[in-house]
């Protein structure tokens, strides 16, 4: 009997199949409502930006993997998701080469050069975006204001944060605009509803837990209210929803322990409020999450999960 070719490996000998691909594919699926609304508002701008970002992301991954002599892994969707997220972070009228640079930084440098998925300390899309912010702060600010389709300038809703109930407050978009769709700011800031639909899907699929988004949003709500802002407007406007559900929850760069996740969420929430109110509203969410990323490993070391039998059932 032929027996010399038997495979010997440690248990278990059964594995759930194709998990990585399906998880990242689910993230891409969860972004579909947002992408759809975004294309509805920005038409060609959105289509072109998203397409350029995704193609660049795939090329970056292929090239970097080839250079480093590793097997390409487009099927795991992680490069594609990074490309999509970066495009969603940028305003519609941004020069295309910025999209390209942002994606190259995100995928080629943050993700691949740092050892591939799993080794990166920072969220690739956010890091790419933050680098662009630093490189081209003023022009990026301006292009945020070039929103709507017919070329009419629409200010990013973030402009109205920090004005309290002063004379300008009458001009800001209403909650329902923010919720259902409003053509101002970045591609991914058009509709809170679309984000929540996608987030519900991710939570249902078990890829995202409530701890991180809930603690970020809760902290922002409470703290902005204390500081005299309109808390509902504060959490609905800008990229906070997108950041809380799709970026802060990134597997690799967030803590793994549930308690650490809550502390991480509170930390990010505090940073968002402070940066938005006392520094610059645009990019506040991105920088806050990146700072949170830096603390994630430390937070994970501070908590040890309660083992089975150590406590009474916490079900």
């Amino acid at each position, binding site marked *: 009997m032929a027996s010399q*070719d038997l495979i*010997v*490996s440690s*248990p278990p*000998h*059964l594995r*759930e199949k194709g*998990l990585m691909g399906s998880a990242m594919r689910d993230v891409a699926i969860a972004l579909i409502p947002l992408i759809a609304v975004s294309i509805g508002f920005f038409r060609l701008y959105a289509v072109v930006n998203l397409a350029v970002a995704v193609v660049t992301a795939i090329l970056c991954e292929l090239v970097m993997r080839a250079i480093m002599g590793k097997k390409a892994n487009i099927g795991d969707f992680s490069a594609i998701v990074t490309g999509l997220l970066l495009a969603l972070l940028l305003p519609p009228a941004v020069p295309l080469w910025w999209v390209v640079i942002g994606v190259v930084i995100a995928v080629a440098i943050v993700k691949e050069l740092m050892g591939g998925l799993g080794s990166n300390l920072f969220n690739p899309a956010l890091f790419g975006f933050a680098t662009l912010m630093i490189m081209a702060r003023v022009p990026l600010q301006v292009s945020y204001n070039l929103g709507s389709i017919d070329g009419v300038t629409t200010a990013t809703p973030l402009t109205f944060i920090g004005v309290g109930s002063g004379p300008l407050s009458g001009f800001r978009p209403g909650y329902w605009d923010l919720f259902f769709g409003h053509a101002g700011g970045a591609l991914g800031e058009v509709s809170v509803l679309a984000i929540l639909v996608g987030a519900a899907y991710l939570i249902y699929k078990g890829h995202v837990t409530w701890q991180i988004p809930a603690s970020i949003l809760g902290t922002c709500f409470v703290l902005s209210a204390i500081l005299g802002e309109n808390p509902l407007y504060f959490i609905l406007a800008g990229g906070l929803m997108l950041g809380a559900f799709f970026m802060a929850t990134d597997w690799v760069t967030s803590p*793994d322990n549930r308690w650490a996740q809550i502390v991480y969420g509170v930390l990010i929430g505090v940073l968002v409020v402070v940066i938005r109110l006392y520094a610059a509203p645009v990019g506040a969410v991105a920088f806050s999450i990146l700072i949170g990323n830096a603390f994630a490993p430390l937070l994970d070391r501070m908590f040890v999960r309660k083992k*089975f039998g150590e406590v009474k059932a916490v079900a």
Partner: protein
Amino acid sequence: MELKTFRGGIHPPYQKEATANRATVEISLPAEVVIPMQQHVGAPDSPTVSVGDRVEAGQKIGTSEAFISAPVHASVSGTVKAIEDRPDFTGALVQSVVITPDPGQPSKWTDKRDTSNLSADQIRDIAKEAGLVGLGGAAFPTYVKLSPPEGKPIDTVIINGCECEPFLTCDHRLMLERTDDLIAGLKLMMKAVGAQRGYIGVEANKMDAADTLTAKLAGEAGIDVSILEVKYPEGAEKMLIDAITGRRVPPGKLPSEVGVLVQNVGTAVALQDAASTGKPVIDRVITVTGPGIKEPKNMLVKVGTSIEHLIEQCGGFAGTPGKVIMGGPMTGWAQKDLTAAVVKGTSGVVVFDSASVDVEEEQRCVGCDKCLDACPMFLMPNFIVKYAKVGKWEMADKFGVNDCFECGCCSYVCPSGISHIAYVRKAKAELTAAEKK
């Protein structure tokens, strides 16, 4: 009906259809039987026979003086051919007695006596003399478990009929085919430890077994069938106790801490056999199955039979064999050849043909936390691996590596294909070595 269960765990494909409805069959004798002197947790035995000796089936051929140990018996009548080191199913070299069976085997252990008047001490002695160990795979000497420590009274005995490992059906068959003996065995155990409550835990995918047991138990006070959710590892000792009684065994402690004794279905039947007929543990029911086996079967097998013989008895391989596993697919041992012998704790042989084995390259952990949710011990398997990879054993310890019972749920759900158990075993070995220093 609300099914009982624990928190965590996974739902692998069960794939038990191939053998669930096949009655247990006897198989032909192998050309030799190889009986390892260590088939149990504890001290190894020393052979009490020499090369050339004639032995009778059921004769004791290896013993030890140690408290935690179990004697071994000749599984066939025949001649001792050799006493030498042979690799067991884990690959470790173990001193073994090799016996050439006689062509005709005597029929023994047919007279049954009543066991209802045995005393607790007599039951413990019977378990010890029969070489009885946990037949679910743990292979812990049963009489030790039947001797509860001072000051830790046991009020509940649970028979584990979950058989939560995919593919395996031998316990399922025992529950159907040996129902009376199973119940009698449970009663003996309850008497030995002085427990008033007995449960037989059965997963909801074996309702035929549950119904048969329930019917037999009608009017029986103190013993109940408990129907459990079909989930892996429902049959793990601590999970099962939690599911049925709601008691949680603290980390590092034994079930006696919460007043419970758990025994496998096969162990209960074997105890009844030993008590009623005097038959020691020399054979057991195992399932030989998987996509790489031509005719999957449940079979009664003599201890010491090689895997090769079992596969022949099933019509050989279907396709090119890719992986041969001794035990279930979640916790079993992959074999490098087919020479290893069935021991008391062997519950099955599962064969995957080369097309259905997937060899995935291990990727880096992506922090998806799926292993955290799956771990029934509430550990953080990703952190254990992370620290084991860089040799920080004390950190692996802090994250509970010694509480890991190697169920494999974490690896099952891991999108990065990480083999946590390999790291867990390494870390445990390092920590034990460090402790000894």
